[in-house]
């Protein structure tokens, strides 16, 4: 009876494949199609955000070209940060990779709530449209930084970028938050409840563990941002005073708002904001673990330690938001507490880094493009992590706060690391998602230029920052003490253009391979996890008639005595050459 039911379920999924154009490509409930929708949408947003960065660098290296007015410069800064964080990295990792990978890696046919999944994407799209529309309203888009500190962001008269554009910014973010919450509760339910036979939580690939903890963080932190956004929106459109103090002077006139507190916004924002940076890095950590283990042909070192450190980082991320506010008038004792909790995060981060290195140690390393980006991830993560230790120390941070040192730090540890993992994951799973392999030669050129571009762009920013160059400064030439940094700015900008141009190679490779790449077989990398055991590309319903059964963890590479150097999770016991695996 059971077998019949399973067969019917499989058959029903076969018929699903014959859907109308709209059901298949637009309002699809298939996790793979939704994942691809997210993937392409966020790739487009990355281009917009990257374009903002190019404009900024053009202006900073050659300030007298007249590329950007002061207002436009601040707007470019704001939109670069906002789009990259909320519309590219966050959503690419959860909406894109999360949707594409979860059911494939846990052996499910789809997410727990497929319709909610579709609604989640179609809640994200209005957010994208709103944020893009804000470029075309009077006064331009928001210009208060991606943190939208009140009261600058609360009073439309405050400055150029605080008009309608700021209101649209808040609305767009509300869409993204709601969309992410729908996604997160779907991910949690799916991972907890839809795992296939034999796949215990202790046998999950680390990628899924990363996504799982990310979903928990999103569920616990996004509502806090939602509260802040709602209150700020009311301050702007309804005249309430949650965040504006009494007697605020705006444009020479005393504001009508009274009694609020701008610091409250900072608390709400950073209570969300710090978990957010781990939302951007935990999934990449999982992806990188997967790739490093596969291409070292070795089991991941310290699987349990990896899960525990992911969890520890997730937990600690809620206790450190104050380190963003050391200069906001915090009691020194409280600052010391936040300093301590922040430094503790170095421990689980270091555990992970050592585990990746130990996995590489003694492995037979295959330098595919995916592997290069994964190793690049470890490099930029360590570089950024080390400057993080400086910034965690309150007395040092008071000097370095809001300088380019901070820009360098988070672009390495969070932005570049996350980008590297996304690129690694794209090269790695492209054959599974799209059925064809990407070009490895172009991929390696892309890696080399990206790696050079990242270090050339962000490493010198440490020195500019140590010179006290403020991160939002429009005209460096106006300050004699920054005269020496001018040539560095030119070098940084040239590196940034190199970095930007390198991504065009990736785009070409992506779309060319989509159509003309060599057709991939089921398991081109000889990997173990379930996603590689289903046909390429996976059919609707993923698994044909019967769901797979899992017999082992996903990192059985180079098992002594086994015939192949990998044993997929679906293999019950390893076939060996006679005599090779005799009793010890």
């Amino acid at each position, binding site marked *: 009876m059971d077998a019949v039911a399973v067969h019917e379920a499989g058959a029903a999924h076969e018929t699903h494949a014959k859907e109308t154009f709209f059901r298949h490509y637009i309002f699809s409930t298939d996790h793979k199609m939704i994942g691809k929708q997210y993937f392409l949408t966020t790739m487009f947003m990355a281009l917009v955000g990257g374009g903002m960065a190019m404009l900024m660098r053009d202006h900073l290296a050659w300030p007298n070209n007249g590329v950007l007015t002061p207002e436009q410069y601040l707007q470019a800064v704001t939109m670069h940060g906002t789009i990259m964080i909320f519309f590219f990295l966050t959503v690419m990792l959860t909406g894109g990779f999360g949707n594409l990978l979860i059911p494939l890696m846990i052996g499910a046919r789809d997410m*727990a*709530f497929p319709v909610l999944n579709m609604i989640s994407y179609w809640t994200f799209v209005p957010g994208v449209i709103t944020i893009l529309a804000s470029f075309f309203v009077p006064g331009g888009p928001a210009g208060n930084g991606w943190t939208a500190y009140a009261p600058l962001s609360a009073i439309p008269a405050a400055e150029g970028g605080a008009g309608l554009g700021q209101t649209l910014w808040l609305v767009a973010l509300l869409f993204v938050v709601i969309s992410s919450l729908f996604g*997160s*509760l779907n991910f*949690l339910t799916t991972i*907890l*409840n*839809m795992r*296939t036979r*034999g796949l*215990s*939580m*202790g*046998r999950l690939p680390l990628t899924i563990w990363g996504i799982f903890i990310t979903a928990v963080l999103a*569920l*616990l*932190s*996004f*509502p*806090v941002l939602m*509260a802040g956004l709602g*209150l700020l929106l*009311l301050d702007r459109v*309804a005249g*309430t*005073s*949650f965040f504006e103090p009494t007697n605020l002077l705006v444009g020479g006139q005393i504001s009508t708002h009274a*009694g*609020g*507190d701008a610091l*409250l916004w900072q608390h*709400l924002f950073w*209570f969300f904001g710090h978990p957010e940076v781990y939302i951007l890095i935990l999934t990449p950590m999982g992806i990188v673990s997967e790739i490093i283990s596969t291409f070292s042909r070795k*089991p*991941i*070192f*310290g*699987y*349990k*330690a990896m899960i525990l450190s992911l969890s520890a980082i997730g937990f600690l991320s809620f206790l450190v938001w104050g380190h963003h506010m050391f200069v906001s008038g915090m009691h020194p004792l409280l600052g010391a507490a936040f300093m301590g909790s922040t430094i503790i995060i170095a421990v689980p981060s270091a555990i992970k880094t050592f585990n990746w290195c*130990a996995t590489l140690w003694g492995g037979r390393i295959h330098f595919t493009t995916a592997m290069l980006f994964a190793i690049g991830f470890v490099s930029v993560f360590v570089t950024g992590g080390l400057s993080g230790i400086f910034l965690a120390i309150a007395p040092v941070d008071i000097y370095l706060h809001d300088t380019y040192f901070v820009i360098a730090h988070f672009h390495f540890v969070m932005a570049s690391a996350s980008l590297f993992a996304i690129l690694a994951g794209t090269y790695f799973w492209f054959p599974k998602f799209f059925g064809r392999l990407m070009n490895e030669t172009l991929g390696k050129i892309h890696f080399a230029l990206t790696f050079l571009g990242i270090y050339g762009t962000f490493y010198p920013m440490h020195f500019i920052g140590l010179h006290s160059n403020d991160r939002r400064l429009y005209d460096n030439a106006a300050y004699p003490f920054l005269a020496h940094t001018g040539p560095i700015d030119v070098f940084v900008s040239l590196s940034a253009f190199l970095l930007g141009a390198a991504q065009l190679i990736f785009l070409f490779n992506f779309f060319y391979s989509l159509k003309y790449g060599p057709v991939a077989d089921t398991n081109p990398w000889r990997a173990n996890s379930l996603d590689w055991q289903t046909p390429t590309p996976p059919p609707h319903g993923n698994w044909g008639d019967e769901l797979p059964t899992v*017999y*082992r*963890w996903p*990192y*059985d590479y180079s*098992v002594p*005595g086994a*015939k192949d150097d990998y*044993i997929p999770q679906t*293999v*019950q016991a*390893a*076939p*060996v*050459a*006679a005599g090779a*695996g005799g*009793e*010890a």
Partner: protein
Amino acid sequence: MPTQLVERARPGALRGVGGRGFGPSDGSALPSREPALVSNGLLGVAALLTAVIILFLALTSAYLYRRQEAGWSTLTVPAVLWFNTLVLLASSGTLEWGRRRIRLGDAAGLRRGVEATGGLGLVFVIGQIVAWRQLAAQGIFLTTNPHSSFFYVLTATHGLHMLGGLAALAIVTVRTWQGRYTAAHHGGIVNCAVYWHFLDLLWVYLFVLLFWA
């Protein structure tokens, strides 16, 4: 070459790999799939409620933070809120009664329960609007003072979640009319009831927070 099967977890075979997952790790041992502790639906509701709790905790902390500032004054309780509170508590009671009836297989009882709950829920929402109208008639609006701002924000946010609850209730009511629920299968009722009871408790919490905390 003839092959044989080996036990993977030989002592010392994989020295230095740093562990291989939790639980049984030899390929031959297959942990049977433990039945899910809770259904997808209930787990989804639990996750949703977690997010809602965090949302209201954030608003609560903003409220407590703001209350420290000078010039704070508390509104007098609009009398209709007492009535609304009783109505909402009663609606939880009727839904719970309906849920217990269907556990005994009494579909007619369930029907009466969800219908009564829907009616009482609507009365509550209308009652909240009446409370707003009464305050507005006294000249107390969103921007009048900090407490009124928070009163409107918190009641409106709760009200939006109530509308979501009413939508869920409408769905289960239609399904009840269609006779879809039985003693063995009424997960939709359970999920809806958990959400509804939560909104009920949330209102009591907000009522206390706004006027007596």
